[in-house]
């Protein structure tokens, strides 16, 4: 039996002892304990150090509102969770808990020195001290010196460094009624509503057991109600489930703890589940939270809320202390006093802040039990380093001050400032609140439009008179209230003095006071402090509480793990991955992949991984890319172009639509012919390019860039549906239907010739920019004579499921001819040698066709197309626009850096206007030197000029050249 465990009573299972450690110290508790109740049973009140002053702190509450008792729970193997409220952590065998915010230990903490200087650490201290004028180095000193030091010293738990090994689940649910809160009101509502078997009811409660306060006062009744509910198939009961966010249209997010800490848990099973519930009606039965009283030194370990003490005694069989002083502003503390006295504790006195104590005969009953009741009395101060040891009392005078009136030794102080309805979730849905003077609290008034939310029970203010207290704010003190530390917000270490200081410095709105003092901004969101803060600001500024306003309640009600939101979307499941039919072949043949959108594309091939350990990855890649380029220029290369976006247009108006969509003339395109096409936005800028191929009078096969496919398809859909709905044309995305094998190089015709049926391949019958339908190795295909390399080349479109055997056959043949596969890097080099642009690499969303030297593509006679009017804007026709050019460094071996800025003057000072920048830069195997594409103001008129690229350590001289480096006549295309 642990020291403070009562001999009988409570909901714990005394037959099941449980071992746990706190800061390495071995202790015992029982099944049914929380970490907080087990610690108290072992006589431990000191559980943490406060945020700012590092003051010793104890357990204040018995629920989710706990501001002090935040601990790190280490379940081993990287399963470490900081900042958990000990009042909510269920005890399990072997639990490892650590206190936080202390160095080196809880009993002696270096940070405690802050407490000695606390007079200088008031509201706004950091702003005033470290944000000095720039001239004094204020901001710089802050960023470099003070902030890192302060951040190290401040903060509570530490985030674990490793990846989270736990799994998290997600579920959507629908119901007629969602009841939030499983106390008496919530259970009764769930019972009433679920009488109709067609009414699906979900009931959730944050605790391991339903019953709420009934578990303290009438556990048998709770058990009966839970039993009745459990028997109903239309009721879903979620324990350990915190409704943390309430959103528009009755949508509620619930965090459910899944691992029953007492059972052996499967490491693979999810530990938490995010419920997203859409309800016909939300019933909020979230109860009420007891308010602390604001008196000097009210934060010592051993000072706790009266209701919490009663909970620990009656629900967990734990005495929080043996010699108890009570300070109260309402009647419920008497219940705690009587129960504790019955359990053997000495109730030294009940100090009543009210002049006339209690309703009915409650004070008389206390007196009859031999408990002194002291009306009009407050606490002027407490002593005790790591635990309260005595209190000094004071009589409240009519002038609002207090005078000393003796004192007591005590190991525990219980306080009760009345009860605050928990309206957080109602407020999150933007429901209107009203101020209830007699309760010293806000109550739900009117749900926001579209919300079916009803608040019942204590959350709606339905509380017996004994729970009500209008008192808010700080209690009277003897002498200057600025000489004492009376805490309002325990978690953020905000005192009544800080709030008064803020109002004296001119802050009026509670929103500003909150941000300046940080009151209510800790992870507990001010559950125990907000109303006392309002009371102090109201008193100080001589206004009523509603005049000051109320800060906004936001989700989450209690902190939620990141893992819960991430759910299954992590690792391989973070984002969908698209692979082409040739992916596995590429992988087997040494492909190094790159991500292009969600696609995996072969970047380059390393058939034999470099054995020379000294060869860097970069050198190996360079060598591979150079070899791939040479194969294409000298023999034949195979390229997997399956990721290209492909759209099929069908219908009598297909040509008309494409004519309006692309800059090019399309209506005149002959069947069997292709055209390189540019797509603009209405502003006149290039957003995509591709090939338009006419398969029949009313049928087109159009390609887009890999990354632009979905966007372009969506844009066309928009024009088809809303701009030109009269056009008879249908578009279908066939990106995944067709795999595309590009066969490029002087020997490309040779390797496909005997595989193709029904298509005459001669240059005359099937010229450059032609398309035919036929068969290849017996499979239907669309064969394009197109080239993105400047070589004779074909793109074979073949149904994706049938592509791999063809690829394998072609790869075999290519190897016989001295060719092979090439990746996207070689593709980039080959196209840059020809000056072919890549949209979004050589263009940046402000480039016109003319800028790119592609003005020839525009159908000049067309009355309209997307972007035509945009191209006529004065800025787009002005001279001096950036134009695509080629660059070669004077040191020709040099490969420039993409993105490098270009200036005309070798001595251009830093900050000079750059006339352009490098968009593409490679080492060209065919030319034996570095090449680059760039966009430069008035670039075409600068051909031949020497320009300069200032880099970090040097300035590189470059010569402007034509953007086509290789075969400008195009002889190689027409082999």
């Amino acid at each position: 039996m642990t020291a403070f465990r009562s001999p009988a009573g409570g909901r714990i299972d005394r037959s099941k002892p449980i071992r746990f450690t706190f800061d390495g110290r071995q202790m015992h508790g029982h099944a049914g304990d929380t970490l907080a109740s087990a610690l108290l049973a072992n006589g431990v009140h000191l559980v943490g150090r406060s945020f700012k002053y590092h003051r010793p702190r104890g357990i204040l509450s018995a629920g989710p509102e706990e501001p002090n008792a935040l601990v790190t729970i280490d379940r081993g193997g990287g399963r470490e969770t900081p900042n958990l409220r000990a009042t909510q952590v269920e005890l399990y065998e072997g639990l490892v808990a650590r206190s936080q915010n202390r160095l080196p230990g809880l009993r002696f903490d270096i940070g405690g020195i802050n407490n000695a200087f606390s007079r200088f650490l008031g509201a706004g201290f950091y702003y005033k001290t470290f944000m000095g004028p720039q001239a004094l180095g204020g901001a710089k000193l802050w960023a470099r010196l003070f902030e890192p030091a302060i951040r190290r010293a401040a903060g509570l738990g530490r985030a674990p460094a490793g990846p989270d090994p736990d799994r998290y689940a997600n579920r959507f649910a629908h119901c007629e009624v969602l009841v939030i809160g499983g106390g008496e009101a919530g259970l009764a509502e769930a019972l009433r509503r679920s009488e109709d078997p067609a009414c699906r009811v979900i009931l959730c409660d944050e605790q391991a057991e339903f019953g709420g306060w009934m578990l303290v006062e009438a556990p048998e009744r709770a058990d009966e109600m839970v039993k009745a509910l459990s028997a109903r198939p239309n009721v879903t009961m979620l324990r350990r489930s915190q409704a943390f966010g309430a959103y528009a249209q009755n949508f509620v997010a619930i965090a459910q703890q899944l691992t029953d800490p007492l059972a052996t848990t499967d490491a693979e099973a999810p530990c938490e589940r995010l419920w997203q519930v859409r309800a016909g009606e939300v019933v909020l039965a979230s109860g009420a939270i007891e308010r602390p009283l604001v008196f000097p030194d009210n934060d010592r370990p051993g000072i706790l809320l009266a209701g919490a003490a009663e909970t620990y005694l009656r629900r967990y069989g734990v005495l929080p202390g043996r010699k108890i002083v009570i300070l109260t502003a309402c009647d419920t503390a008497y219940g705690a006093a009587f129960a504790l006295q019955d359990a053997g504790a000495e109730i030294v006195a009940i100090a009543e802040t009210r002049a006339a104590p209690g309703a009915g005969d409650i004070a008389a009953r206390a007196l009859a039990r031999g408990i002194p009741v002291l009306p009009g009395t407050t606490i002027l101060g407490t002593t005790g380093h790591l635990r309260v040891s005595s209190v000094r009392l004071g009589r409240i005078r009519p002038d609002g001050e207090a005078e000393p009136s003796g004192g007591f030794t005590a190991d525990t102080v219980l306080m009760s400032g009345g009860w605050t309805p928990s309206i957080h979730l109602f407020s999150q849905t933007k429901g209107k609140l009203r101020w209830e003077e007699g309760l010293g609290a806000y109550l739900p008034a009117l749900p926001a439009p579209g919300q079916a939310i009803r608040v019942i029970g204590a959350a709606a203010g339905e509380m017996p008179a004994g729970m009500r207290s209008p008192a808010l704010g700080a209690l009277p003190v003897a002498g200057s209230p600025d000489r004492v530390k009376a805490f309002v917000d325990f978690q953020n270490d905000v005192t009544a003095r800080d709030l008064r200081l803020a109002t004296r410095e001119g802050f009026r709105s509670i929103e500003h006071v909150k941000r300046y003092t940080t009151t209510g901004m800790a992870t507990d969101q001010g559950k125990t402090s907000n109303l006392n803060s309002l009371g102090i600001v109201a008193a100080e500024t001589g206004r009523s509480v509603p005049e000051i306003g109320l800060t906004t309640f936001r989700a989450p009600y209690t902190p939620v793990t990141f893992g819960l939101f991430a759910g299954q979307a992590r690792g391989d499941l973070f984002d969908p991955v698209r692979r082409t039919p040739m992916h596995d072949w590429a992988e087997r043949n040494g492909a190094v992949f790159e991500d292009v959108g969600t696609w995996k594309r072969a970047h380059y091939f390393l058939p034999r991984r470099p054995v020379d350990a000294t060869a860097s990855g970069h050198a190996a890649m360079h060598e591979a890319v150079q070899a791939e380029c040479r194969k294409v220029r000298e023999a034949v290369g195979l390229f997997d172009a399956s990721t290209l976006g492909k759209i099929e247009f069908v219908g009598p108006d297909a040509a008309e639509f494409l004519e309006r969509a692309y800059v090019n003339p399309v209506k005149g395109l002959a069947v069997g012919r292709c055209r390189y096409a540019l797509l603009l936005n209405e502003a006149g800028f290039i957003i995509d390019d591709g090939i338009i191929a006419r398969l029949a009078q009313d049928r087109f096969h159009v390609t887009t860039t890999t990354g632009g496919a979905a966007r372009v398809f969506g844009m066309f859909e928009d024009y088809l549906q809303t701009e030109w709905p009269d056009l008879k044309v249908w578009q279908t995305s066939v990106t995944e239907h067709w795999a595309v094998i590009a066969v490029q190089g002087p020997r490309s015709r040779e390797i496909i010739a005997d595989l193709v049926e029904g298509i005459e391949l001669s240059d005359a019958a099937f010229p450059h920019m032609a398309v035919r339908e036929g068969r290849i190795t017996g499979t239907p295909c669309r064969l394009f004579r197109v080239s993105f390399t400047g070589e004779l080349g074909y793109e074979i479109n073949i149904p994706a499921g049938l592509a791999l055997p063809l690829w394998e056959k072609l790869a075999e043949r290519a190897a016989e001819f001295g060719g092979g596969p090439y990746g996207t890097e070689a593709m980039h080099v080959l196209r840059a040698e020809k000056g072919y642009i890549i949209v979004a690499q050589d263009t940046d969303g402000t480039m016109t066709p003319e800028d790119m030297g592609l003005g020839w593509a525009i159908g000049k006679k067309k009355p309209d197309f997307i972007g035509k009017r945009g191209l006529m804007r004065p800025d787009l026709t002005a001279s001096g626009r950036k134009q695509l050019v080629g660059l070669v460094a004077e040191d020709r071996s040099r490969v420039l850096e993409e993105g490098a800025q270009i200036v005309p003057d070798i001595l251009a000072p830093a900050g000079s206007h750059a006339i352009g920048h490098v968009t593409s830069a490679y080492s060209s195997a065919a030319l034996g030197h570095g090449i680059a594409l760039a966009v430069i103001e008035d670039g075409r008129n600068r051909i031949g000029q020497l320009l300069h690229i200032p880099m970090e350590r040097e300035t590189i001289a470059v010569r402007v050249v034509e953007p086509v480096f290789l075969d400008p006549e195009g002889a190689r295309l027409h082999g």
Partner: protein
Amino acid sequence: MLLIRCPWCGMDRPEIEFRHAGAAHITRPGPPDRVSDEEWAAFLYLRDNPKGRVAERWRHVHGCGRFFNAVRDTVTDVFVVTYKAGEPRPPETGPGESQPTEARP
């Protein structure tokens, strides 16, 4: 998460099935040679940003794929009405009439 009624499907569906597509009832001026620079600039870039009811385009992109219009209150996020693309804005959904709220700093 909001529920949005797709006027083509005739069903309330969750917000994640939809994609916002900008202001509604913007007419593309033309033909190009009859449109002034100012007119075209207004078409490209100038949009109202009222507090209260706005008409905007949405697409049921993960559903029927179709575009439609909606009148939404930018203060309360309430969808007042949704209607098919090409239909006029219902006259009773005129601008303004948003619920007043306290200014929040």
